[in-house]
């Protein structure tokens, strides 16, 4: 191996990833705190009130980024799962396992804030519209993944079974989404359109939403890394490097 290049594969070993993750967590933690603080300030005081929805619309600054994250994390989880299955790397499966609770949290947050938004706008806490329903199903998929991993004692089997389930789920997510959408097309059109045509929102609203989304990204990375560190310690508890780590900390 060329010593001048960074050997990325080095970090696929839990022993070398553990300290790296430890160094990265504070950075992402502070980025998350700062961005979310700025985003919240902007969403409450800077962004103008919506001419149609009044002040109540401000909840979308949490709702929309949470929905984005919940969907994106599922895809990332499936990618890690696939990597774990193909290359048989332990760390990939640990990352998939570490991502699941954060994804489920965001799916729940998205449903919760959606209900708060729905009460003043639609007059009901819950309506059976396409996006709410598919978000609910996404939450079920996360819970199924976590339940399956929790039910299997052998970590290697748990990794692979979870990976297969995540891959099956990611193939199904678009099918579920479009079938639910066809089933009920009551929801208002998407507010943010990617590429061409621009957005129907004011620029400040869009910037605020993007800042919040980036803050949620940093939060997800920080929590996932710290959860991955716990999983690494738990799984590698019989290896020498963990024993040395514990002894060094004691001594």
């Amino acid at each position, binding site marked *: 191996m060329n010593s001048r290049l960074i050997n990325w594969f080095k970090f696929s070993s839990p022993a070398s990833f553990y300290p790296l993750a430890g160094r990265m967590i504070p950075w992402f933690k502070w980025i998350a705190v700062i961005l979310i603080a700025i985003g919240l300030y902007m969403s409450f005081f800077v962004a103008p009130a919506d001419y149609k929805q009044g002040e109540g619309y401000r909840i979308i600054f949490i709702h929309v980024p949470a929905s984005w994250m919940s969907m994106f994390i599922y895809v990332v989880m499936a990618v890690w799962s696939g990597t774990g299955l193909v290359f048989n790397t332990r760390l990939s499966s640990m990352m998939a396992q570490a991502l699941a609770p954060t994804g489920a949290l965001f799916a729940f947050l998205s449903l919760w804030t959606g209900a708060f938004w729905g009460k003043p706008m639609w007059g009901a806490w819950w309506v059976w519209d396409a996006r709410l329903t598919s978000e609910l199903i996404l939450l*079920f998929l996360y819970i199924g993944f976590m339940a*399956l991993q929790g039910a299997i004692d052998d970590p290697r*089997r748990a990794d692979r079974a979870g990976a297969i389930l995540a891959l099956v789920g990611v193939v199904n997510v678009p099918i579920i989404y479009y079938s*639910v959408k066809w089933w009920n097309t009551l929801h208002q059109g998407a507010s943010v359109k990617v590429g061409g045509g621009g957005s129907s929102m004011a620029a400040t609203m869009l910037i605020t939403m993007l800042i919040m989304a980036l803050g949620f990204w940093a939060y997800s990375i920080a929590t996932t890394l710290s959860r991955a560190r716990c999983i690494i310690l738990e799984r590698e508890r019989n290896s020498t490097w963990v024993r040395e780590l514990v002894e060094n900390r004691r001594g």
Partner: protein
Amino acid sequence: MLKVFFWIIRRDLLLAMRRRTDIFTTLFFFIIVVSLFPLGIGPELDILRKIAPGVVWVAALLASMLALERLFAVDYADGALEQMLLTPQPVSLLVIGKVFAHWLVTGAPLVVMAPLLGLQYDLSADALGVLLLSLLLGTPTLSLIGAIGAALTLGLRGGGVLVSLLVLPLYIPVLIFGAGAVEASASGLGAESHLSMLGAILLASLLLAPIATAAALRVSVE
């Protein structure tokens, strides 16, 4: 290779015939669940006609899910499954054979019985035909997708409840298009589009689900 496929089907059917009560438990579960709804909701035919497609489809979903446990469990317990995985034939072919036999035993009776239950809900002859057709296209998909869940939870504690958590969310598109087909034909829209979607989902799951099931079986038996 085709010979192996038919042998698997024959073997599984023979085994099922030796224990006929299993078939009837699934079927009667289906009948009882469908019959409970009028008792809970009331006997007004207007309401019953409206909810009939959904009730029949949800009951079919639950019945085929309950039957999943038997798909691999017996073979897993007596070691036959391990021997099957050791044979040179592709595992996905074996899975298709087993799923087809399983569907003949647990899915097909539901399809045959559904029009009769539809009569209890005062469905028209057209709607009954569409219901039959949608179940015929939909229940094999349920068995194929369910096989993945059954293979993943093989030999786990609380496997039965876990299977429902894994499999029911994946069943949702089939439920939507299956019940939707009957509703669409009842409202005069025509059921062709829904039935085509059911057919498409069946073909896609016929292609992909056995591969996933084979991978899951390898993980579980290992």
